[in-house]
């Protein structure tokens, strides 16, 4: 059980600043994910925690002890790599046992722990296989067992699923979540896949250009994005530029000719004028009354269809319709769209920051 505290961390590569100033707190036994596009600094940060990258400023501490100068071998970490990094000449069991051997665990105890670890990732039957004889998913299970068997203070995972195919990814992330939960080890997980992040994490830090954009539970990040970057990176959204007006103490925007909607409680009373309204596709539905629009095209996706339509203002809007209704949505069809107000978020058009009350970028 370990708390991780990152304080004012700074990372430079040959004079280029990769991470200017970053602080985070990760709780005991928490499954914490660093999420962001490639090049955002998430892997760099993970490798700083592991000790493979140098630290140009700030501190990293485990349970209040600064570990900046401790070599990786002494940080008591378990690490899972994107390319599995299994030792190619050793069997699955030997790979899992490697960390126990360096810790001089007696043979009998080590064997029992290897067996248990392989069991927990459902690889007990393949203990004598060499990495070359295993599938990608099996290799990653062994790598996970190898990282867990040493009972590390912290488990670090660097895009562990990105080399696997889509179906296996879903299966593996359930295994990872379950195993982590049972072991109760503080886990830092790096991924660029927002769906994966939402599925496994207790909390997520969304990163861009070396800066943490928002930290929160998956639901918080999806429903209350701190800024435009987070809103666009997590899920899909339609950004519409509108005027925010105050009438009788209520904030309203005119979505289409004659159709105004209330923006509920979230808006800072000081805000008015140009804003960007973020409308999630699932907040839009075809209705008898609402904003007029013309269907442009429809993409059939199985359980539902994705529809693109043009508003009277010329803006494009995307929304989802369940499949049975989609046959009527041919290109050129005129229709009206209802927008659910409690799912809206509003951003400052210049800074991109949310103007929701209490939200901080």
């Amino acid at each position: 059980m370990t708390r991780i505290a990152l304080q004012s961390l700074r990372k430079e590569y040959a004079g280029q600043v990769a991470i200017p100033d970053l602080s985070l707190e990760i709780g005991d036994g928490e499954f914490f994910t660093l999420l962001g596009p490639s090049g955002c600094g998430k892997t760099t940060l993970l490798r700083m925690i592991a000790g493979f990258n140098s630290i140009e400023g700030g501190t990293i501490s485990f349970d209040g002890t600064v570990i900046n100068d401790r070599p990786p071998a002494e940080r008591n970490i378990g690490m899972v790599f994107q390319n599995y990094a299994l030792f190619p000449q050793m069997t699955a069991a030997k790979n899992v046992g490697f960390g126990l051997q360096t810790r001089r665990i007696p043979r009998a105890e080590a064997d029992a722990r290897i067996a248990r670890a392989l069991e927990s990732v459902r690889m007990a039957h393949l203990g004598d296989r060499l990495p070359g004889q295993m599938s990608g998913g099996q290799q990653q299970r062994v790598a996970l067992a190898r990282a867990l068997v040493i009972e590390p203070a912290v488990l670090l995972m660097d895009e562990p699923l990105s080399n696997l195919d889509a179906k296996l990814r879903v299966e593996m992330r359930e295994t990872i979540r379950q195993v982590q939960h049972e072991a109760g080890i503080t886990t830092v997980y790096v991924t660029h896949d927002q769906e994966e992040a939402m599925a496994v994490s207790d909390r997520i830090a969304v990163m861009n250009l070396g800066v943490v954009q928002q930290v929160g539970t998956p639901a918080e990040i999806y429903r209350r994005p701190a800024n435009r970057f987070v809103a666009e990176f997590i899920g899909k959204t339609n950004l519409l530029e509108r005027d925010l007006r105050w009438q009788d103490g209520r904030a309203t925007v005119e979505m289409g000719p004659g159709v105004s909607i209330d923006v509920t409680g979230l808006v800072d009373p000081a805000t008015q004028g140009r804003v960007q309204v973020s409308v999630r596709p699932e907040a839009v539905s075809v209705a008898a009354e609402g904003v007029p629009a013309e269907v442009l095209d429809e993409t059939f996706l199985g359980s539902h269809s994705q529809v693109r339509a043009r508003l009277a203002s010329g803006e494009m809007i995307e929304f989802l319709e369940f499949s049975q209704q989609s046959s009527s949505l041919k290109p050129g069809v005129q229709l009206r769209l209802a927008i659910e107000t409690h799912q809206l978020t509003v951003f400052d058009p210049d800074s991109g920051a949310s103007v929701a009350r209490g939200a901080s970028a």
Partner: protein
Amino acid sequence: MKGQGRGIDGWMSIALAITAGYLFFVVWPLVTVLINSVTKNGAPTLDGFRTFFSSKLYYGTLTNSLLVTVCVTVLALLVAFPLSYFMTMFRIRGNRAIQILILASMMSPPFIGAYSWILLLGNNGIVTRGLRGVGIDSPSIYGFAGILLVLTLQLVPLIFTYLMGAWRTVDVSLLEAAESMGVTGWKRALKVITPLLLPTVLGGSLLVFVRAFADFGTPMLIGQGFRTIPVLIYSSFVGEVSIDSNFAAAVAMIVVVVTLALFLVQKFIVDRRTFSMTAMRPIEPVQLRGWRNWGVYAYIYTFLILALAPLLVVVVSSFRNTLYGQFTHGFSLQSYFSSQRDITRLVTNTFTIGLSALVLLVVIAVLVSYLTVRRRGLLTGVLDTLTMVPYVVPGLIIGIGLITAFSQPPLVLTGTFAIMVLALAIRRLPYTIRSTTALMLQFSPSIEEAAISLGASKPRTLLQVIIPSLAPGILSGAVLSWVTIITELSTTLFLYTISTQTLSLGIYTQVIRGQMGTAAALATILLGLTMVSLMLLMRVGGGREIRV
């Protein structure tokens, strides 16, 4: 790196030790050659260079060498390209066997080719006498044309191996894309394939260039009146008339400058053109029909016969009877029995010296490649450059450097076992380091990090994780190095004594002394040793690509 303070000291001291070793055993000898080239009896002079450029007898060897080198490189390319093209694009029966035979002909001791062409086309050669019997004067093997023939046959396999390696990286979709745009056949070979293979071709042709330029054995044996620059260095250093080490050193410096210039030009061109490819789907050979099929087979087999004939001739000749060193009628094991004691001595020396050099070589190569790949820094950068020095300096000159530097205090090594081992290791190191570095680059750093994250120390990581996983590659590289060590001639030519003479040196002296029978017997043994090593390589390499 912060947080890794303890590991750095160990690796840094290894880097320092190896760098110091290179400075003392590679750079210092070359510096003594440089000093020798501009001083005579302690006084500064440019006499050596002046003599060289004053007489056509001397500077002519430079133009001769350049002529041979350019012609051989062009010819080797012209022969090797179609060969690799046919072997890749078309289904050839016995493809694998043919590739192994071509490799074998490349790995055979370089000067054995020259020697056996003497047996075939020399003044008293089999073909010469046969043709004379029916009243035809056969073309002479001696001189320019002979050197050209022997060196081209020797070096085609080298470029061929390079090209085959490059072909393996060409994805068939590139060819299909060209075909879909209407570019096929020779047009495709020229417009699409040639540019793809060009970096490899340039890299390979430099190697051919340097080898042909520095080759000593072939022009020494069959050059006769046509003298090349290595022959000039040899004869002025050994002293046909009088020993003139100032002159020899000056010529050596000229050779170093020429090879270095070539190396830099090639590096400049290749660096600008490098791109990386990996073939998801390698090229599938197609079955040819009719006259095209016959043509392709004729081309491949003609080359094979020409390349392998010399080896066959040597083996057969070793069983012929001899009289005063020359072959006479009848077959027996006379050549083997009469020189039994020599054979035992030479084979023992070849093994003890060769294996010692090999161990030294592999240990240094593994350490250097690890340092240059994983510990990039100023010191390892310097080390990386230093290790490439013997790559551009011909073996003969390394030998001259070693004998000048270590025949005087502080360290006298002339005539020892150690100097032979050193010379062979130094000569081969650039090649072994390159192949080990390639392995090291493919080895994902995260595997090493995984070991460290599991609490393993640096030495433990090296010994338990890195070396075992690279072992197959290191081993097949070592076998290849072994083959080149036992066939090396020019580096050790000045360094051996009777007690440190190896097989290849033995063959050379027997040929020079006119003891053709003994020479053939020794050559057959060396050839046998080479073939056994190559078969071992096929075993340990498990069909992996062979790097030269």
